[in-house]
């Protein structure tokens, strides 16, 4: 097994509440990959679907990034609008605060959103725009929350941006509202963004067990449900690297217990549902969860049978980026797939420990990205399939390696019991596709066989 880099250890505070002066390893010029903090802040907050999200800066930060996420909405679509102050050179010389104020007024007047999130960018941070003051003034004047998100791209990585967004929620949103009287208190999901509709599958499961989903932070969320998140009885952290700090802060501030869990794979799903019921301290609920998970698991075993036959013994390299590696590993193991390589560059120490628990000694750890590094692992370990994010998809296609997209741009939901079945199908389709054979065989005139009359 390859030793884990020192940077990994430096990075351990990346997801925690109080980072040291250097919170994340510095990206290396010339070999860096991945997004910036601004990107990370948007990932966390854009799934608040009814709010307006205004980017304060020149056009590219908004223009190049809007509509790039697979987060789905069951109703309002205002967060899918791309709003930008679109600063020009004059604004930068004379200051963009007036334009920001006018933009906020314009959006409030025309779209009447329940809240407006305002994102700073590198340029507006550098020229020292006082965004907090503009937002505060607008909040008072307009009577709706206008929330500054101070996460310009150059402060660090995507993960830091997730954390800064979490801090904005803590500071300005959570605890500012009260739940409607008829809502039973329940669980908050933290760090689940409803990619490809996964939240809906999870919500369905929770509902069948009689567990109330209080606040979705933030997949397919409405603004007001986050304002009352402090009344929940349990927090479940779905993606720990991103928002563990938020859960920790809510524990100390509002005494809400939290646990880290996942919905990838039947085992993890069952564990998560049980943990919810346990922390809710409700015996009846625990019994309901047991009945539900038993039923779902036995049905899943039946449904998976034909796919397991094909997938059993197949070797996979996993490079997930944002989605927790360890939970996907559990899911893959349930399908009979052997994970021969796994990316760890976005995992916390706890995550790495969990990965080590779940994989054998034979698994290679890939601590840093870069397509060539991943491809090398695929080749060295004779993997049959690569499971990674969209950025590496076409790298795999060029090398004619079967591929399943697991990241934020994907179109399939893999959470819960139904999700595992979908993942099994997707992997089977990918492996069994005739294209691999067709693409690797030469044109007839390139074969050295004489033409058969």
């Amino acid at each position, binding site marked *: 097994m390859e030793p884990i880099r020192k940077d990994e250890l430096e990075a351990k505070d990346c997801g925690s509440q109080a980072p040291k002066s250097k919170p994340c390893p510095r*990206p*290396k*010029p*010339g*070999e*860096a*990959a*991945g*997004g*910036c903090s601004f*990107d990370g802040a948007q990932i966390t907050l854009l799934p608040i679907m009814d709010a307006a999200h*205004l980017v304060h800066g*020149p*056009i*590219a*930060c*908004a*223009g*190049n*990034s*809007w*509509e*790039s996420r697979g987060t789905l909405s069951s109703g309002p679509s205002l967060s*899918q*609008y*791309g*709003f*930008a*102050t*679109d*600063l*020009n*050179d004059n604004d*930068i010389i004379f200051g963009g605060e007036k334009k920001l104020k*006018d*933009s906020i*007024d*314009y*959006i409030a007047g025309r779209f009447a959103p329940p809240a407006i999130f305002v994102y700073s960018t*590198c*340029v507006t941070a*550098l020229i020292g725009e006082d965004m907090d003051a503009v937002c505060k003034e607008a909040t008072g004047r307009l009577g709706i929350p206008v929330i500054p998100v101070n996460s*310009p*791209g*150059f*402060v660090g*990585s995507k993960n830091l941006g997730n954390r800064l967004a979490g801090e904005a929620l803590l500071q300005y949103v959570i605890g500012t509202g009260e739940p409607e009287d008829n809502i039973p208190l329940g669980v908050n999901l933290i760090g689940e963004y409803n990619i490809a509709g996964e939240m809906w599958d999870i919500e369905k499961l929770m509902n069948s067990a009689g567990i109330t989903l209080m606040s979705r932070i933030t997949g397919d969320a409405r603004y007001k449900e986050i304002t009352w998140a402090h009344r929940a009885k349990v927090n479940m952290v779905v993606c720990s690297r991103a928002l563990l700090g938020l859960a920790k802060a809510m524990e100390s501030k509002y005494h809400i217990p939290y646990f880290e869990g996942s919905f990838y794979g039947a085992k993890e799903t069952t564990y998560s549902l049980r943990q919810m019921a346990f922390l809710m301290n409700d015996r009846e609920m625990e019994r309901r969860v047991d009945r539900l998970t038993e039923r779902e698991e036995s049905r899943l075993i039946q449904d998976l049978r034909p796919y397991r036959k094909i997938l059993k013994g197949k070797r996979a390299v996993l490079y997930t980026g944002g989605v927790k590696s360890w939970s996907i590993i559990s899911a893959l193991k349930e399908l009979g797939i052997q994970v021969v390589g796994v990316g760890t560059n976005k995992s916390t120490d706890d995550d790495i420990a969990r990965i080590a628990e779940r994989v054998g000694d034979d698994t290679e750890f890939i601590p840093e990205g*870069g*397509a*060539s590094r991943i491809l090398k692992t695929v080749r060295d370990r004779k993997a049959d399939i690569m499971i990674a994010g*969209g*950025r590496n*998809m*076409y*790298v795999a296609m*060029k*090398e*004619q390696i079967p591929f399943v997209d697991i990241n934020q*741009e994907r179109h399939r939901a893999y959470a819960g019991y139904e999700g595992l079945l979908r993942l099994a199908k997707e992997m089977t389709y990918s492996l069994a596709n005739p294209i691999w054979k067709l*693409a690797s065989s030469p044109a007839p005139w390139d074969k050295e066989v004489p033409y058969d009359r």
Partner: protein
Amino acid sequence: MTVSKRSKPASVNPLKIGQSLGGVLALQGCYRALPIIHGPQGCSAFPKALLTRHFREPIAVQTSALQEMDVIFDANRNLEEALNTILTKHRPDIIGIIGTELMDVAGVDYQSMLKSYKRERNLRGGLAFSVTLPDFIGSLESGFSGTVEAMVDELIQQAGHRNQRSVNSRQITLLPGSFLTPGDVMEIKEMISAFGFEVITVPDISTSLSGHLLTGFSPLTRGGVPLDSMLQSLQSGLTIAIGGSMERPARRLHNAIGTPYKVFQGAMGLKATDDLLHFLHQISGEPVPLRYCWHRENLLDSMLDAHFQFAGMSVIAALEPDHLYSVSQWLEELGVEQKALITSCETPVVSGMEREVWVGDLDDAEVLGSGADLWISSSHGLAGAERIGAAFMPAGFPVWNELGAYMSTSAGYRGAMDWTNKAGNLLIRREAGRRESSVRHR
């Protein structure tokens, strides 16, 4: 004739794409090239993701990965580190350093840094240049043409003086605009070489982003025009630029080494293709190849077939300036009403148009285009088109909700025919949908 702008403080659903993305796109058309975006990580991650989604190909780009403190103390230290890493690890033939708005605002002088770096390291044999592409002016189109201009500049400098030039009159340098797809570039290359010319295309995305299965991964571009061909292009007897934005690099070649040039505003539709082929026919003395005569008739016939469909229809188009001009000329030939034309920034080409053009965003398109039957824009326009009930035709950049959009061809007679049929089919389907729903509601 008039360029208008709706007054609102914020941009709502931007049409504009940052200039630096245009720069990255231009460098994808050069073999073994690597653009470095001098700025924070996000400035390269977003274009990379967006270009990957559009072209469905890996995209070569790197970053100097600036963080707050680097910007304050010495941003060029990061750039130097990036250059060192890239030169030792990948040895690209062409490096393009793209300066972002942050570099502009912070006042970082990376141009002279690059010069001294090249001198100190004695960099020879490759091409390294820098170009400033802040996002608060221009758009994708100007970023693309600006990068080509900087590249041509560096080529000229490297090749040396005018008197060493031996002109090859059978060789033409083609400068294709940013709005042309790999399929378009291929079509235009074919047209020019059909008259017996050698064509060197700068940059050539038709051989890098058209979907090919070269194996062997590389973080550099695979395909595109190689550096030695680019150097050889200085011997061309003529430059042909497609798109008004490409006039500046063409003029640069003319001023520095005397290559005459001809600019075609577009290559889409009957008249534009007639002009291009007629010109090629005249300068070569060769007859127009028979297949183009056939294509011309095919186009005219399909326009006849489609004219019933287009009668009384209105269209809204929101595209980059040169692209908008081209599409508008084609719409003119179809005889449809052009309800509103919207573009990302003002250029001489759009201010010279006979129709009113709006500089704005996709929200303006929604407002100005209400009641339109067909909506032509990037995939970002899909939601707006749905809201106003128009049929949606993806074009421009980025397009992600259609397979093979990067090979969709609008250039030449055949391209115009494809587009005419595609637009007509969308209108047929829309009409059928409406008829069905009116039956159901009775």
